[in-house]
């Protein structure tokens, strides 16, 4: 049995890797195959995976994770300015700084739980946001935002680029470099920044998989289930939650660093509460506590933000061009409030539908579909095997009681 478990995880890992690496090919047909957006899919995927380690496993809902995203961005950008245009030291520095910052905020916030914890994290993040605009202007460059400059000292490699602002690179490979390959009438864009972020995403996904499958992950799930009981069981739950908080803060810092590596500009609005709320939406929409859910949620929300927001009345009219004019216009009037600048409305509606009908997020939806298919395709195996349940839930096998239906929690 144990062997199968490992095989299932390996299969998940391989599938995930293939899908991520094939990003340009998969996203081009849906109009999202350009570097800027693909990078964002991946980077926010990392952010959400990290958030899920805290929220999905321990149940502690942080409303201030954007603060770590911002701290990561500023730290990375300072490294790019002061040390080297190479992204490696910038990323490492950002992860360390955001980790320390998370240690501080987590230490204080985790003294409380539930709504008080959420409010504390929110307060800290808003404080950071306001500080970035005011007192910390020398570090953050206030409203203008921090960016690369011709005068940057860059101790290690300033000689290399006289006359123009350098762009972040991985040992000479510039993040903005893109190879365009025509394929079946589409232009596939293979971008360095995307692939650097994608490899990091794959690594971070693997790390989260390992955490989910470790005794540490199980203890975090026990925190979510019944923290008081856990304390009477002999565990000091506080350092466990703090560790989870710091890990997720470091994931956020990493994401923030990657954002400035792709686009070297860091503004304080990255720390605003809306940004903190966004990662909560991503995680819940995809499926909190599942492995793949947060990445899925991040993808969907970023897709909406970037693609739906661009659909204007003309585009919609185009869809109905085959219909009589008056009908086409009627349709357009009905639909257009939900598109373009109204994309928030559709996102909100979808979010509500998901929360009401699929409390387990899109991953639960996918599972239900899969179950439906297996049931329709004949009753050869009507329940999930033990191994399946184990591999998919990030836990030891868990079956519902024999009386209720066994839900197959297949993720893919």
């Amino acid at each position, binding site marked *: 049995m144990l062997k199968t478990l490992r095989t299932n995880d390996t299969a998940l890992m391989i599938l995930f890797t293939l899908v991520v690496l094939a990003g340009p090919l998969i996203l081009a047909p849906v109009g999202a195959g350009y570097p800027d957006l693909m990078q964002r899919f991946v980077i926010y995927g990392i952010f959400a995976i990290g958030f899920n380690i805290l929220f999905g496993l321990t149940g502690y809902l942080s409303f201030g994770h954007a603060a770590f995203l911002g701290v990561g961005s500023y730290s990375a950008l300072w490294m790019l300015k002061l040390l080297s245009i190479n992204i490696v030291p910038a990323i490492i520095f950002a992860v360390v700084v955001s980790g320390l910052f998370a240690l501080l905020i987590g230490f204080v916030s985790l003294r409380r739980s539930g709504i008080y914890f959420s409010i504390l994290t929110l307060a800290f993040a808003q404080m950071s946001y306001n500080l970035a605009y005011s007192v910390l202007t020398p570090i953050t460059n206030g409203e203008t935002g921090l960016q690369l400059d011709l005068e940057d000292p860059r101790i290690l490699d300033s000689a290399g680029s006289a006359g123009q602002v350098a762009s972040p690179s991985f040992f000479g490979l510039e993040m903005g470099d893109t190879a365009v390959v025509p394929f079946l009438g589409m232009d596939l864009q293979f971008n360095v920044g995307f692939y650097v972020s994608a490899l990091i995403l794959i690594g971070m996904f693997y790390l989260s998989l390992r955490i989910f499958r470790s005794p*540490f992950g*199980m203890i975090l*799930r*026990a925190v979510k*289930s019944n923290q008081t009981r856990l304390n009477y069981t002999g*565990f000091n739950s506080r350092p466990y939650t703090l560790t989870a908080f710091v890990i997720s803060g470091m994931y956020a810092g990493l994401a923030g660093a990657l954002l400035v590596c792709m686009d070297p500009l860091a503004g304080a609005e990255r720390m605003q509460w809306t940004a903190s709320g966004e990662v909560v939406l991503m995680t819940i929409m995809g499926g909190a506590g599942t492995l793949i859910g947060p990445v899925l949620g991040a993808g969907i929300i970023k897709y909406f933000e970037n693609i739906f927001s661009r659909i204007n009345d003309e585009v919609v009219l185009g869809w109905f061009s085959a219909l009589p004019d008056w009908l086409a216009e009627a349709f357009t009037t009905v639909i257009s409030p939900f598109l373009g600048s109204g994309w928030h409305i559709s996102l909100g509606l979808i979010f509500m539908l998901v929360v009401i009908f699929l409390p387990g997020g899109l991953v639960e939806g996918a599972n239900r579909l899969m179950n439906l298919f297996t049931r329709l395709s004949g009753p050869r195996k009507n329940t999930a095997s033990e191994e399946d*349940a184990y591999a998919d839930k990030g836990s030891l096998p868990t079956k519902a009681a024999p*009386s209720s239906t066994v839900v197959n929690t297949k993720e893919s």
Partner: protein
Amino acid sequence: MSILKVKGVNKRFGGLLALDDVNLSVRENTFHAIIGPNGAGKSTLLNCFIGKLMPDSGTVSFNDRSLLGLEPHEINQTGISRVFQTPEVFSELSILENVMIPAFAHRDGAFHISPFKSLAKETAIREQAEKILQDVGLIDERHHTASAMSRGNKRRLEMAMCLVQQPKLLLLDEPTAGMARADTNNTIDLLKTINEAHNITFVVIEHDMHVVFSLADRISVLSQGHVIVEDHPENIKGHPKVQEAYLGTAESE
């Protein structure tokens, strides 16, 4: 030698004196039952042992070490485990995981992280947990979530969670409440076997006199926050004070 010593413990809830100068001495490797009418303060007394409540005055010491002021996990790590009156389990986790968690706490201490260790490779812990689940008769359901269990089964699960830690002192708050007769008898047998096989001291709150008299080496009778009698079972049965305590409350109810 007494392993648990309680001296002059008082606990007040507003106007109610829930524990009134309680003295108790539990000898090592004995089965000590605490009985008494509803609301006598039995659960409150146990809460003072495990750090859930802080007595207003008095001392509680375990192996000559004071337990007062210790965090719940510290008390557990000294070798005290407890089964709660209303079952407390990790509902969303599987039954097997529910037992593996305390086993980890026992093996690794209150805080220990090896983030890259795979749960699937912790075979020793797993086997330990499965062995205990076998003993309490839950082995077949081990992959079910704990939320769907009956109350009696949750109690057995909690017992397994405590036993897997091989505690020195096991506190049971009405271990057979909500169990059918057959299950109660199984539990009695289980406790007997454990008591004989391991060096575990039991402090058990129990309303079921059949259980008390089958197991107890010593009985303390608590009434209105006060220990009115402490003696061998045979001396308790016909004790006038005990009769009075039970009949007295029966009348006033």
